């Protein structure tokens, strides 16, 4: 670039009048750049040089076959033949801890594309149907393929087809439980100054409670009765800040001093003292049991033992779940 005389692009005259002489039009992508830029802000071309006229060609294939990550817009190109998918040394390289090192295989043969899960830990889903290990599934334009927690759209033209974009983008995050590892977005740091208020469910005397193990508050005070637990608002006990909790996760039934806990088929399960509950099989809880819904951990306490030991749990908490305020 040392010897090339700077040519003031004559398009400068037809551009915005206030910027005459201070803009450069990129000869490759026709983007208007400020005069001080050395490289085109759009395509990176060295603005004072000339592109090789002999080999003019489109910068991007119009019919690029690729997978597009919805969250970030990243494109993963697919080639004719076998394309490996995984976290290490793969063609489609997904740096996410919910993706196995060798996760799946995508075979491209003309317009026929098939996906095979090759024994991944968190599984492969095509349009919400989980693949059996080793069996190939045909995928078409616009199909959603999920490797672990990474969701990708199959595209034949380098962009997400319109039909997909309006379908389920908005509610994708809201209504699905994350399976596998934590999402990339930083989890808000809970500060000591603002502990969560206790949640009171049922009416009458508090007979049992679930105490948050991380000490941030948000303990659940329960009377006799039957309560649903989950991430969705319609539950009586809402665990809202843990994406690993399912929409409908579990149920608690307290009657005549006996507390039964039942997992209603959650994605990531319910653990009691480290062992996973069988779905739909109630288990009796005892004082001091350690319970984990998704990634949120509680300790089960029966009412009479610790009403004094836990002064932050008011006996006269307001009845509205989630809206109670500490005096």
């Amino acid at each position, binding site marked *: *670039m*040392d010897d090339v005389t700077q040519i003031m692009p004559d398009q400068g005259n037809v551009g915005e009048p206030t910027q005459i002489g201070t803009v450069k039009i990129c000869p*490759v*992508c026709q983007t208007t750049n400020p005069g001080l830029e*050395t*490289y*085109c*802000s*759009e*395509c*990176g*071309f*060295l603005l004072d*040089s*000339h*592109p*090789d006229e*002999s*080999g*003019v*060609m489109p*910068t*991007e*294939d119009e019919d690029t076959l690729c997978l597009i990550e919805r969250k*970030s*817009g*990243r*494109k993963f*190109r697919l080639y004719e033949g076998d394309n490996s998918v995984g976290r*290490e*040394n793969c063609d489609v*390289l997904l*740096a996410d801890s919910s993706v196995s090192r060798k996760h799946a295989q995508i075979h491209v043969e003309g317009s026929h594309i098939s996906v095979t899960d090759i024994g991944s830990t968190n599984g492969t889903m095509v349009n919400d149907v989980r693949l059996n290990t080793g069996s190939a599934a045909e995928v078409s334009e616009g199909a959603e393929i999920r490797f672990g927690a990474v969701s990708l759209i199959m595209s034949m033209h380098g962009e997400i087809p319109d039909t997909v974009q309006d379908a389920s983008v908005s509610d994708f995050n809201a209504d699905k439980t994350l399976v596998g*590892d*934590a999402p*990339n977005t*930083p*989890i808000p*740091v809970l500060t*000591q100054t603002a502990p969560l208020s206790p949640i009171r469910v049922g009416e009458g005397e508090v007979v049992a409670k679930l105490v948050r*193990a*991380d*000490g941030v508050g948000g303990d659940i005070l329960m009377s006799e009765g039957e309560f649903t637990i989950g991430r969705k608002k319609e539950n009586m006990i809402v665990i809202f800040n843990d994406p690993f909790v399912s929409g409908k996760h579990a149920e608690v039934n307290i009657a005549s001093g006996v507390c039964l806990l039942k997992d209603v088929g959650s994605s990531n399960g319910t653990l009691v003292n*480290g062992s996973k509950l069988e779905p739909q099989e109630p288990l009796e809880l005892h004082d001091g049991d350690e319970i*984990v819904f998704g*990634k949120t*951990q509680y300790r089960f306490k029966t009412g009479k033992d610790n009403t004094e030991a836990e002064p932050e749990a008011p006996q006269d908490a307001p009845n509205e779940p989630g809206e109670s305020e500490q005096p």
Partner: protein
Amino acid sequence: MEDKTQQMSGFPDPLSGATQRMNVPPVFGGDPMAQPTAMGMSVRALEMEVIMGNQFAEATKSSRLHQLVLLKSSGTAIARRMPLNVCLAIDRSGSMEGEPLEYAKRACEYVVDLLDTNDILSIVTFEEHVEVVMPARRVVNKNLIKQHIQRITPGNTTNLYDGLMQACMQVASVNATGYVNRVLILTDGEPTTGIKDFNSIVQHAADNKMRGITVTALGFGSEYNEELMAGIARRGSGNYYYISQPALIPEIFRKELETLMTITARNVRVRFSFPRGVQCRYVYGVAAPSISARGAEFVLPDIERGCVVANLSELELDRHIPGTYRVVKVEMSYEDTCTGKTETLTGEGVVEFVTDSSRIQQGVNPMVQSELEVHLATRNLEKTMMGMRTQQLTAMGALSDLQRTRNILIQSGKLDQAQEVTQAIDALQSGGDAEKTLIGTIYSLDKGKRKA
């Protein structure tokens, strides 16, 4: 038109003349304090260089290209070190009884001696419960602090999560900026009470990193979970140490403290932006890079003085109209302990897209190539370790794998890590614990840090 790599901040490049210098001051050649910078400001702690794996790329088809970002810190001692805000979190479970706990206490006292009145120290012990031996305070009355340390006695189980949480809270409770914030957590076993699962504990370390608190994990003896401790260090951006003998605990604490006292850059954040037709495929050795369509962003561990940090990533290039292009813009920001301010550095990577593929061979940069080999050796080391753990690899097979990796490391100038692999080989031959050493070697190779 031969010059492809643009170097924003100059220092002597031993490898080739194919590097173009934008700013002239050769900061690393001479005395950094004596060199004026281009901006006429005081000298900054870091310099950055962006090197492309090849100065040429295929114009006619898509290709992949490696990119190396070198961060170099000045080797000269700065007039004033940044004060420390350190919490020592000590496991006092039953298994620490006797020599280990006594040496741990001695190590704590040693730390007290090393610190001065500008530094802030807190000490937390954990067993079934967590106890704050000393809340975060300036190190003024050293004898009094030592008396408190002497009162530490062994307890029962290991509640690692709560210990880590309390330690981070102690560091966070200091309501002032301008400190190097660090938690040192020492344990000799698996977590046995409280929150025990790997992801919750490691995520806690990662959350604290976002708040500017880094966590160094020290594993002692043969019973601790090296996967967990290395995970804490990795996500907490601190260091990982394997301490085989109780008598070594004070020495390792000293080493860590000395490292902390020479930190010149904290909160190191790197951002790549790409033009159309260029994407990032992978950032090597970084726990959670966030990669988007036209960029990538990630955090690097704190940098001590006299270091070179090599960060390797892989780009995917679409086909281009032949010509010279800037394929990446690199922006880096960090808190500079020399100037006390947040500084930013910028750099760029330039590549010429050519139709004649025979020119590609001539453009290979040997330094980037060598970093790539180190990375491959690191992954091999990981594979060897997995093979040993799952017993799919015989001791003989592991030995020959390790010897091969060691040779690659020696050739690439990674002598410290080669030394560690030698230790692992010795441990393997004498029936000792090689994995606890190797997991640390893998982590330190991934950090890409070496002495300048």
